[in-house]
């Protein structure tokens, strides 16, 4: 038999023909297509029992109730809690993104010791025992050197058991230096102290649900001022009731856009407008009679310096418009209220403005009146044995920030004074610093100075959940559980009309090697033994919570929140100022042509918590583009400065020069540059890391002469084509 290549060809042909009559090619084609539909690098979400658990959100001061959807033990989604009084089922973008904080890449996954230079974020993992031993050694060293009073602590709030445990630890060690970051609520407290002579802890509450006329001096009422969800609901009630909403601002913020009543005044003249309105009210004899001291002097001051005409020129409004507004505002039937606190209210702001706006409310009779603003006693429901003893033990000692003494009697804590103090002195007045739920390196103005000061602090212990600008300066991190993994009582300030305490619950098992900060503080105290340990008689933090909250503990565990009633504080004699503090609200070099104003975006969070991926994703490209901050200017300003929409430009203030992108917008006043707050973070989630610029780097702080807080609301700047 002869075999040649034709035979093999025939073999091949036969094989090919045969194959076509087998399932092989057809099945392979089908399976290949299924392979493309499920390629291996695509994650497959695991199925399982679905459960819902309720807890509370702590990502902003708003105090919303949330429910988490769990599949087996994973939290897959956070939704609003329908039965919660603050948000009634709604939820903000940050709240929704909470899962990305819980499982996100910026979590501190175990105790860590700094291994690189400060600010570099290089860490070595250590055990909890090692970490606690180190803290103990640091404290003991200071105690032994009789410098225990240089131990300081910065927390995000002074409410609830956790901050109070810190406060107690410091007190029992002999240090009064418990500090919190200042917000507009601290300024309101200062105003109540200054203009009503009140002493001690007092809170501000707003009866927005019953308001009939809202006059907001640059407050981002729906951007996140106070409790954002509550404010959004209130604003919708106003809209439904056709309640007028006047927004005094330089640009169409979401609040201004929503209100439909923008009143554009020249930047920094908000206080003047308020005083002008006061003048119009007094001269129109529209003010409410009451027990007021200094009325004549105040009236005289207004007449001299803040007459309607003067104010009209200064603000750029028409005199008639001011008089008209004053008339509407002062009409008792209006049930009006004037509010201030710039943007989201996460900064203290200028006392001049707060006093002027408060004077306006006083004259219109809107303080402690339905639909108005209320002064209420701060809740004192957390009482521990020995509290008073400890308070008196430290009462004689001077605080590092001098709050409560001398020129600074209006403030409880003045964190903003620390960096300049350290830098001026050249050495740190703080020997050991605890930081919990606060990010001062990011949120304090004049970042360069803040960094310098933090570098000088000998030892910093951070209790952060996530890495941020401040942890980068810490020597040791004792990571806290995220709010979804821990118990914590969270009393809500945020200007709610009723006092409210939320409880966060461990709806997820700890994902990483972290510990509830409450437990950490208690174990630190216990490790110090002696009187310190005795001051912390609880087994653990949960025990502390249960014993402290008493009857409310079970309710909180079951329902998630407890709402209370608060009666207004008797205001007694009102003291109107005879002279207004003269602090320019706009800092910086007067020769620079433009005014830089931070804008608080609805989708960018500028406080301790940074935007998680979902929240960042919805940030418009008019605020962040690529890795650059986008600043907003008017078409006229753009032409005058030679700028083009979408193009790069160099933004310069006295502190820093940065490259930004320009967005030309119809919704902003000429001569103003608006810059979004919340960008320029370091060491956060990789999604946000090193994107844009931190507003605080550009803003020169300005100490308010009345309160001692940082009063800066804007700074002079130039914006030139890059």
């Amino acid at each position, binding site marked *: 038999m*002869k075999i040649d290549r034709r035979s093999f060809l025939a073999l091949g042909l036969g094989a090919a023909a045969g194959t076509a009559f*087998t399932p092989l090619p057809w099945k392979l084609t089908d399976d290949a297509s299924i392979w493309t539909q499920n390629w291996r690098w695509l994650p497959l979400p695991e199925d399982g029992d679905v459960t819902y658990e309720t807890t509370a959100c702590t990502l902003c001061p708003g105090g919303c109730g949330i429910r988490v959807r769990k599949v087996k033990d994973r939290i897959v989604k956070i939704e609003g809690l329908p039965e919660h009084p603050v948000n009634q089922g709604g939820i903000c973008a940050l709240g929704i993104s909470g899962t990305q904080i819980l499982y996100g890449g910026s979590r501190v996954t175990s105790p860590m010791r700094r291994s690189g230079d400060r600010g570099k974020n290089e860490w070595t993992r250590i055990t909890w025992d090692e970490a606690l031993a180190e803290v103990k050694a640091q404290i003991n060293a200071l105690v032994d050197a009789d410098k225990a009073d240089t131990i300081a602590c910065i927390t995000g709030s002074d409410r609830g058991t956790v901050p109070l445990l810190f406060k107690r630890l410091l007190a029992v060690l002999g240090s009064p230096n418990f500090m919190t970051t200042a917000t507009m609520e601290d300024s309101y407290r200062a105003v109540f102290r200054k203009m009503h002579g009140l002493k001690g802890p007092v809170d501000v509450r707003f009866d927005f649900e019953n308001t009939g006329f809202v006059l907001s001096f640059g407050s981002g009422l729906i951007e996140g001022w106070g409790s954002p969800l509550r404010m959004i609901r209130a604003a919708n009630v106003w809209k439904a009731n056709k309640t007028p909403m006047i927004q005094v601002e330089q640009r169409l913020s979401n609040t201004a856009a929503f209100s439909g009543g923008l009143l554009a005044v020249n930047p920094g003249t908000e206080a003047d407008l308020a005083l002008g309105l006061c003048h119009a009210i007094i001269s129109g004899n529209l003010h409410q009679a009451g027990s007021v001291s200094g009325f004549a002097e105040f009236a005289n001051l207004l007449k001299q310096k803040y007459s309607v005409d003067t104010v009209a020129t200064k603000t750029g409004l028409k005199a008639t418009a001011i008089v008209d507004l004053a008339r509407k505002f002062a009409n008792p039937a209006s049930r009006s209220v004037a509010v201030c606190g710039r943007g989201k209210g996460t900064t203290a702001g200028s006392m001049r403005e707060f006093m002027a706006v408060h004077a306006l409310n006083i004259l219109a009779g809107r303080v402690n009146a339905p639909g108005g603003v209320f002064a209420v006693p701060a809740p004192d429901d957390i009482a521990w044995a020995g509290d008073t003893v400890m308070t008196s033990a430290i009462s004689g000692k001077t605080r590092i920030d001098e709050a409560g003494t001398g020129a600074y009697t209006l403030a409880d804590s003045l964190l903003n004074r620390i960096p300049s103090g350290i830098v001026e002195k050249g050495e740190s007045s703080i020997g050991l610093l605890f930081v919990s739920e606060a990010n001062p390196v990011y949120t304090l103005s004049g970042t360069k100075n803040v960094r310098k000061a933090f570098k000088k602090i000998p030892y910093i212990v951070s209790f952060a959940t996530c890495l941020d600008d401040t942890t980068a300066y810490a020597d040791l991190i004792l990571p806290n559980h995220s709010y979804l993994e821990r118990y914590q009582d969270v009393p809500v300030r945020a200007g709610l009309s009723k006092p409210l305490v939320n409880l966060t619950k461990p709806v997820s098992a700890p994902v990483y090697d972290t510990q509830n900060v409450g437990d950490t503080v208690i174990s630190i105290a216990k490790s110090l033994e002696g009187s310190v340990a005795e001051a912390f008689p609880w087994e653990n933090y949960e025990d502390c919570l249960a014993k402290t909250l008493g009857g409310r503990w079970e309710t909180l565990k079951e329902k998630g929140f407890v709402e209370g009633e608060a009666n207004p504080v008797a205001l007694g004699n009102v003291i109107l100022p005879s002279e207004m503090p003269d602090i320019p609200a706009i800092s910086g070099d007067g020769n620079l042509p433009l005014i830089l104003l931070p804008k608080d975006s609805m989708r960018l969070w500028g406080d301790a918590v940074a935007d998680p991926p979902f929240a960042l994703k919805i940030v418009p490209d008019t605020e962040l583009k690529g890795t650059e901050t986008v600043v907003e200017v008017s078409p006229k300003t753009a032409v005058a400065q030679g700028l083009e929409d979408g193009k790069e430009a160099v933004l310069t203030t006295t502190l820093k020069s940065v490259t930004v992108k320009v967005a030309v917008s119809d919704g902003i006043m000429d001569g103003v540059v608006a810059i979004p707050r919340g960008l320029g973070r370091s060491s956060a989630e990789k999604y946000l890391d090193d994107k844009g610029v931190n507003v605080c780097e550009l803003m020169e702080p300005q100490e308010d002469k009345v309160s001692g807080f940082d009063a800066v609301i804007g700074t002079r700047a130039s914006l030139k084509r890059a």
Partner: protein
Amino acid sequence: MSTSNHEADSLAPGEAPDRKQGAPGGVIVLFFIVGFALSMAFGWLVFPKLLYSEKNQPFDFNHKIHMDLVDSGCESCHVFREDGTYAGVPTLAQCADCHQDVQGESKDEEVFVNEYVANEKEVPWLIYSRQPDCVFFSHAAHVKMAEMECKECHGDIGESESLKVYRENRITGYSQDIWGENIAGIRKNTWDGMKMTDCGKCHEERMGSKGPCFQCHK
């Protein structure tokens, strides 16, 4: 093959008229038939073996014994959750109700109790009827609303005394039961396949249409 070696193969067709002495036609036909037969054998017999890998369940399970013990059939263990979704294979907790300790029925039970119940470890069952991730299947709609029997799709598994070998498609990663045992895709029983066409056929017969895409896809 007698041509000079240096003539390029691509020019083979050029070897025309004078080289008629190649293999005779009969040989060529024979070769064709051999090739045909070989590939048929490969495609029908060898290929299916190659396509699927065989995996054993962690241990054997006797459905029949359990069926005799329970009151409400399959649903006694394969339960619907409160929200209407179907839980599928029972969890360890369900089984552990009875099998807290070794009852000594079988070796497999011993493995179960000692390795899984004692360690509180879920059994990594290989699920014969697992659909791709893109598929939504409502057991409630079929079992509760249409009152179909489990058997219609799953076959007689409830009567089985031991678990069959799990065969996984090496390319797609899915159980052979989705395509069906028959490599040609020929179905004799309603449970002989769980592909989209199988669903579509039944839906068309009983519902009048195959239904919208979203009915099963997610």
